[in-house]
């Protein structure tokens, strides 16, 4: 059982480039989340989804887009990378929402130069 899998683990982007962070879970969870982790700032919610075809903004959605075409996948898209998006990104899933245990991926460390 792989749980939540994120790819890539590391990436360096140039300013203005775009990329997609992949997230897949094999637990048939409806709820999925994207967080960014900045030093001293904790985890900030970027976007979340309560099921296939349904997404909503979190605290810091600007500069990002998501889609949820299947239950398993929840990719995060950066269209025009900026240095402020340098961070560690975590994807998570849960069975029944924010009052149940969240399972996290191993993270993607992104640097924008």
């Amino acid at each position, binding site marked *: 059982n792989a749980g939540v899998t994120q790819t890539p683990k590391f990436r360096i982007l140039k300013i203005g480039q775009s990329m997609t962070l992949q997230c897949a879970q094999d637990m048939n969870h409806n709820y999925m989340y994207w967080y960014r982790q900045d030093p001293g700032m904790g985890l900030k919610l970027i976007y979340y989804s309560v099921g296939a075809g349904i997404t909503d903004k979190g605290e810091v959605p600007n500069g990002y887009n998501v889609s949820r075409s299947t239950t398993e996948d929840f990719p995060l898209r950066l269209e025009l990378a900026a240095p402020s998006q340098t961070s560690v990104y975590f994807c998570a899933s849960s069975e029944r929402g924010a*009052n149940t245990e969240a399972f996290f991926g191993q993270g993607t460390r992104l640097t924008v130069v």
Partner: protein
Amino acid sequence: AQRVTQPEKLLSVFKGAPVELKCNYSYSGSPELFWYVQYSRQRLQLLLRHISRESIKGFTADLNKGETSFHLKKPFAQEEDSAMYYCALGNFGNEKLTFGTGTRLTIIP
């Protein structure tokens, strides 16, 4: 709006000494509180949640609604407890799980 405050960014404790990591929350409804831990080079994982009232790895946390706190405690710290600890707040019907800024706990041998 819901908010979680962890006042200590860094905490160092000697091995064998008691540990207390503070967490305060702000929420008008009935909260679900969690503690998550991130050990070095491992993914974030659930340590415990208030509703289960369990003791995990010697840690306990009691929800105090009067003080809006959910402090994490352990009577005798061990070296393997060194990690980053996050307090988190969720609730039934609101899909956003809110995290505090985290406390990095270092156990001094």
